[in-house]
């Protein structure tokens, strides 16, 4: 019998990362486009778990704990529903052990 590896809760995982939260959102989602999207790849592919589907088929997002990797806009096949850039200079994620 393999003992299951006890993994961290996602919030605890993210609590180990240093974020300097910007006042301005650097992600914008056109949620009308999301309603017609059947794959919603951003929801599971984003390593920071920033995208949450809503009951009406749209997307809620949080920009504060973004790794700034760019996965979301590259996997988005909803006709550029995700506008994405970098947070203002000096803000956002700060890796110490990358």
């Amino acid at each position: 019998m393999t003992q299951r590896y006890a993994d961290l809760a996602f919030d605890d995982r993210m609590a180990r990362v240093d974020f300097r939260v910007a006042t301005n959102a650097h992600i914008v989602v056109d949620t009308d486009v999301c309603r017609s999207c059947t794959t919603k790849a951003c929801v599971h592919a984003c390593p920071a778990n920033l995208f949450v589907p809503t009951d009406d088929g749209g997307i809620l997002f949080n920009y504060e704990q973004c790794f700034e990797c760019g996965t979301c806009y590259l996997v988005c096949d909803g006709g550029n529903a995700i506008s994405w850039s970098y947070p203002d200079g000096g803000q956002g994620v700060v890796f110490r052990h990358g």
Partner: protein
Amino acid sequence: MMRDRAGPSGAAVTVEPPATTDFDAIVVGAGPAGSAAALELARAGHSVALLERGPFPGSKNVYGGVVYGRVLDELIPDWFERAPVQRWITRRQTMLLSDERSLTVDFRSQNWGSAPYNGATTYRAEFDSWLADHAQQAGAVLVPSTVVTSLLRTSGGRVVGVRTDREQGDLTARVVIACDGVNSFLAKQAGLYPGEHAEHTTLGVKETLALPKETIDERFGVSGSDGVDIEILGGTGGVPGGGFVYTNHDTLSVGLVLGLPGLAKAGLRPEEILAELKRHPSIRPLVRGAELVEYSAHLIPEGGYRTMPRLVGDGLLVAGDAAAMCLAAGIWLEGVNFALGSGMYAGRAAARALAADDPKRLREYRTLLADSFVLADHRKLRNAPALVLSDRVQQRYPGLVCDLVEGMFTVENPAPKPGLRRLLRRSAKRNGVGLHQLARDALTGLRSFG
């Protein structure tokens, strides 16, 4: 509403040609490519600004294992006495994972544990800052906490500077070097990338896990400042990619590299696939009881030579991840060395063009790259990334190899032992691989790696 800034839809700003420029050169991004470029330019006596969007160099950067130092010999000859190294790699493993089985090729060499050393693990926050310090000491001006939002271009298309997110943030220069990483909005703004490149991009996710140094030494069979790098094929939940485990002084780094199209289709979360890798019987004993100190993620341009952008624009050079100079070819997994090399040659070509006051000489960058390991290795291994990410190599060969080896080592007497040829046929059949296909892939592999 999105502000006017760097991003997939950002556009260059058209300006009048400046009469004088703020700097001779502007380098965007203080990673290994940017700092190497700035160092070369400053050494040649040119004024150079090194712009970094993080609060310090390396703060936005993540990598997958080892910095190979040979190119540093040229850039900073006594680097190995001064670089912020975690461990020197003296043991290198390639591991194939299939269900609960694994086959590992394990090589160690104490030759790599003394000068001039082969490769080292390091934290990018420390390594990149160290390298940027060298550029500063040579005279480059580091400007951290600054995002470059657009290129400044003349109506004729010549790049003459950048717009930043600072107040009155336009900076002009005679040449701009884009070392702005895998998403390179600047290379895209300049039209140097032919199209979207999601299919050649992988997502790296990594956990840095704390363990006492003695525990790491014991589990990995090393001592002192010697370290281990394990590269893994399989263990990605069926998503094309791979994994890695490597040792730092008193932490381990454990991660996955996941192809974006496969990840988008899979419906799996990256950290769940990583948790599954850590549960594998070959990995679990290594990471047991370790405490997460940081979770990180970054994209990797894995397509290699065939997916590189144009490297030279009018007044603009592209280096490092921005130029897709990451080599992900199975047994060759390198990136920081290509960033250092391409940045160094970009800086050198820019310095010569500035000295001659001839922007056309920026093209010499391409020649310098072609004459060096940077493009030679990428060209030679141009077919490898596609082979490595192919369905056969990803899904079938790890199982085939584990079946074959399991057959070799399983003792079933009194039933007679099957010969190797029969075992190979059986393993190939079980894993849906035709022997002709196997031979063809072996030939492609030989042509690439041979």
